[in-house]
């Protein structure tokens, strides 16, 4: 456990000292600010526009950070041989993988918190008050973090057997397919024969990120069922665990040439 915490802390420190990360955060905050501006000029739907644009900015930039840093979590350590000196210590490979994951997820959670504060400040500036339905915005942000957990785990999985560039391509493709997974499910239901079998399998294999995206309903002030929070949390936890287990299995057998 101690080793996992040490690796996680170092991963967090690496991300925090990466200038690119700050550029992304500043850009995301600017976008939240811009949505405030757009909200002001959108007569009658200011609040809707601000929430939509603000949460989408947090979601999109978090995903970019998760993929951008996640793809290098293991492959960069192998390419630069920093892993050699770590694994010559009393550190198991699974501890290293899990430590890297926790470190990046922690970074994303802190970043999202910062951007969420910026978002709520912008919302307050526009509306001058918070309403009861705004609590669902926190749930939407929580679901965004669950998406980060899945995408980071997938980036880590790809990073354990391919180069950074290949990992980026795989992770981005899965993210896009996962975002439109509801369409894939609809297609599977409408298809017949072998196509239906393949499409159904694909629909269950790719991450169901669509179910974790509730930006639109909360922007319209719709309440979310409590069970959704439970199911989404379980789903994200299990999916991430499976991806991390895959990364561990691959790395445990891999020769670090």
């Amino acid at each position, binding site marked *: 456990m*101690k*080793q996992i915490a*040490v*690796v996680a802390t*170092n991963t967090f*420190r*690496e991300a925090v*000292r*990466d200038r690119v990360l700050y550029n992304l955060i500043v850009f995301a905050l600017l976008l939240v600010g811009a949505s405030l501006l757009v909200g002001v000029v959108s007569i009658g739907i200011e609040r809707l526009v601000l929430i939509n644009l603000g949460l989408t900015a947090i979601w999109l930039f978090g995903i970019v950070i998760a993929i951008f840093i996640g793809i290098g979590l293991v492959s960069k350590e192998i390419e*630069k*041989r*920093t*892993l*050699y*000196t*770590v*694994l*010559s*210590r*009393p*550190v*198991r490979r699974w501890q290293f993988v899990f430590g890297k994951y926790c470190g990046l997820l922690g970074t994303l959670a802190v970043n999202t918190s910062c951007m969420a504060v910026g978002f709520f400040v912008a919302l307050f500036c526009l509306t001058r008050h918070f309403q009861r339905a705004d609590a669902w915005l926190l749930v939407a942000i929580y679901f965004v973090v669950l998406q980060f957990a899945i995408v980071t785990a997938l980036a880590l999985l790809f990073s354990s057997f391919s180069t950074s560039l290949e990992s980026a391509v795989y992770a981005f493709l899965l993210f896009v397919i996962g975002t439109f997974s509801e369409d894939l499910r609809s297609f599977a239901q409408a298809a017949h024969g072998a196509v239906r079998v393949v499409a159904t399998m694909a629909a269950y294999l790719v991450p169901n990120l669509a179910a974790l995206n509730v930006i639109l309903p909360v922007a319209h002030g719709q309440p979310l069922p409590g069970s959704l929070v439970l199911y989404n949390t379980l789903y994200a936890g299990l999916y991430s665990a499976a991806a991390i287990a895959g990364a561990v299995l691959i790395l445990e*057998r891999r*020769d*670090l*040439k």
Partner: protein
Amino acid sequence: MSAIETSALTKSYRTGFWRMAEKCALQPLTLAVEEGEVFGYLGPNGAGKSTTLKLLMGLIFPSGGRAKILGMEIDDPRVKAQIGFLPEQPYFYDYLTARELLEYYARLSSVPARERRRRIEAVLSRVGLAEAAGVQLRKYSKGMLQRAGIAQAIVHEPRVVFLDEPMSGLDPIGRREVRDLIQQLKEEGKTVFFSTHILADAEALCDRVAVLHRGQLRGVEVVADLSRRMSGKVELVWQGSAAVPAIQALGAEIHATGETIRAVLAERQLDAALDALRGQGARLTSLTPVRVTLEEYFLERLESPPVRGAGLEVQELAGPPSSRGEGAR
């Protein structure tokens, strides 16, 4: 108990598009290194030196055979707390300072918090990085990075230190500093196993050396014995060039610097050579038996057939077969 023992340790890789061809990177290696020894692992590039070190560090898995460090199987987690490793051309987290880097590795090695600060400062001073300890590694020169690498390998005070080409790419001053560090480790009773292709360093530092070529162990020798061993040749130095043709006729290698002539010839030709010098009235400056150098030994071993435990302190490793063989993986 030996510090390092390998028994028929083997590594081969599958290569080619279909991964059907097999390339043997290390042929069955059996060798033992005693505690407190400085052991040089010599060989040209591609000989299998780094492969051996990676096998011992658990970075790659053996295709056959087994290895023990300090009497424990190499996959035993307790081993890792007792060893330090400097990889070839190391790269470290360049966003960290040297002090943070050592803190990281000391924590990974479970160095107690109350001990950590003292050890880190001591090691930084020892490798000459005390003043640059707060500077990020991305601003370090190659020599400084190598010293930081050695510092991370010894910060937890391991009993066995593995160094892969520690002098590679260093300038003469840097090489000297690394040599001094290895010498200090020896004085502290640590076992040092280092690979190199710089023979002068091995000759100056090692108690014993092993020569590896094309993945095969070609020989193991005590360095002190090498310097005592005669090559069957003598070196003559004299003044005056008149005797050169006569000495050359005896099959000697001649090197002339002005009036000073140096010749190396077979010991059995010594009497004839001295007669020739006397006959020409040359003034003999020195007569020295030629000793075997590590370089000569190294070159001779490269040409020789592989050895299987000959001249080694070979022991049968106790315990069940290693679970890290290719079959288990």
